[in-house]
């Protein structure tokens, strides 16, 4: 009877072979994902240390990226950053200016056209200069009508903006057009450098994350040397042995990403007050923009991927060295 049972069990498959059952495969992955999470939670201090280091390494470039983005947004909100002032000829009156505005509004590459009438300009000048009385004495308003033209984003680039200027300068009634090109150029240059810098920093710190995770996993492999040996002895495939380490790396990266996220949110929160105060002084309603959903998803996926990659490298190098004897 007993002998029969044994024979029957063997008869199904004479020898052990690979078995592909997608359901079991999926369940096993879930189990390993959860159990490696459990393993990390059983050493909370060292897990926190590792993930915090990863978090800081990721928060730095991500935060700077956000900062540069904000600077660019800020430059857009500044009048004159890439806006063109069209000084009209003295003889051009209000109705002709309106015609010009209509014309400009139809032109491609322009988002906003706005008139500063000579009266408005004079009043503002009086207010700001303090030469109120002297100006009152003038019989005629010496200031021309001015049209402010704001190019769209594509035409805010220095070269494009300059082309736009020469084009609209030719319009009838325009005395001259002025673009504070130097300033735009400088700002553009600075943000470009900052962008590159963030990219380089991001690459370096991403590499650091790889090394951190790789080293952590290497130590873990060393600590579990005996376990790996025994597991190989009873017929575990390399994929089976690899899996928990890969998930550990994935979790390290993922939680590092979450810590980075929290750090950025905290920094933004700390900066928000002073920034809106400063913006208030400049009559601007500028607000720091935070992380949007896409950036958060990118940060978490990216960090999880870095963790996975780091452990993959470590596992590839160190797991095959362990063979049972």
């Amino acid at each position: 009877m007993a002998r029969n049972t044994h024979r029957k069990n063997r008869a199904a498959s004479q020898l052990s072979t690979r078995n592909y059952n997608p359901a079991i495969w999926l369940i096993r992955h879930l189990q390993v994902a959860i159990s490696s999470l459990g393993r990390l939670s059983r050493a909370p201090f060292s897990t926190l240390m590792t993930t915090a280091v990863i978090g800081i390494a990721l928060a730095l470039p991500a935060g700077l990226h956000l900062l540069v983005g904000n600077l660019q947004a800020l430059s857009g909100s500044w009048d004159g950053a890439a806006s063109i002032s069209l000084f009209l000829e003295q003889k051009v009156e209000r109705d002709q200016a309106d015609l010009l505005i209509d014309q400009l509004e139809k032109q491609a590459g322009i988002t906003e056209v706005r008139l500063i009438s000579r009266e408005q300009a004079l009043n503002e000048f009086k207010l700001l200069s303090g030469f109120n009385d002297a100006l009152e004495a003038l019989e005629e308003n010496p200031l021309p009508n001015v049209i402010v033209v704001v190019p769209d984003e594509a035409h805010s680039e220095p070269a494009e903006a300059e082309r736009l200027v020469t084009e609209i300068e030719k319009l009838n009634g325009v005395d001259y057009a002025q673009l504070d090109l130097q300033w735009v150029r400088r700002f553009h240059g600075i943000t470009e450098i900052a962008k590159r810098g963030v990219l380089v920093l991001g690459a370096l710190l991403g590499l650091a994350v790889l090394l951190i995770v790789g080293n952590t996993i290497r130590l873990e492999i060393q600590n579990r040397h005996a376990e790996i040996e025994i597991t190989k002895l009873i017929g575990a495939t390399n994929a089976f042995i690899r899996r928990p380490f890969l998930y550990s790396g994935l979790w390290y990266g993922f939680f590092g990403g979450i810590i980075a996220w929290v750090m950025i949110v905290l920094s933004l929160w700390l900066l928000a007050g002073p920034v809106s105060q400063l913006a208030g002084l400049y009559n601007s309603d500028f607000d720091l923009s935070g992380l949007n959903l896409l950036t958060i998803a990118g940060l978490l996926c990216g960090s999880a991927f870095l963790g996975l990659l780091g452990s993959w490298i470590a596992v590839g190098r160190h797991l095959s060295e362990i063979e049972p004897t």
Partner: protein
Amino acid sequence: MIHFDNVTKRYAEGYEGLSNVSFHIKPGEMVFLTGHSGAGKSTLLKLIGLLERSTRGQVRVAGRNLTRLKKREIPYHRRDVGMIFQDHRLLHELTVFDNVAMPLVVAGIGHLETGRRVRAALDKVGLLHKERAYPITLSGGEQQRVGIARAVVSKPPVVLADEPTGNLDPALSREIMSLFEQFNQVGVTLLIATHDIELISRMNHRIMTLKQSRLVEDSAG
């Protein structure tokens, strides 16, 4: 079930672990392997479990030609060969149950089936009541029985044991050997390396004797 054809194993340092050994063990046989220390018993078992590869000659186990087996096929071969060690090789951070369950987990057996088989194996070695204990808390004999349960839980056609009674008193040794006989009665092929000639000579099984890496005696039981 186990074929050795002129098998030689030379270690890297030049020592011969095994010299020109040939034999055949049929399915369902129970064989003892004996010989002095350093005679090559462990080497022979390691060649069967593919912990080592032969330098010359051919080893075939359960229909597999181990000489030509690819590296990625080794795990599947090991699932068909249950191995028992003198030092048990249990995982101390796992419970007795989880230790015994390992071969089934590795082979991707479902949860319920695993529980059923692990309990059956533990029951067989008389340790069902210790399933939640950790190996450290068990005696040497009990740990050895956990190791045996782990080796047979997946019902492999071949079971190897390297000095399974090395550290046990005579009564326990007899108990372990009678366990092996029970496995043998359900069709498992067993190869057991041991120094305990007194014990095995009273049992009615084939005995192979190694001497200085050569097979010098092969007596049917």
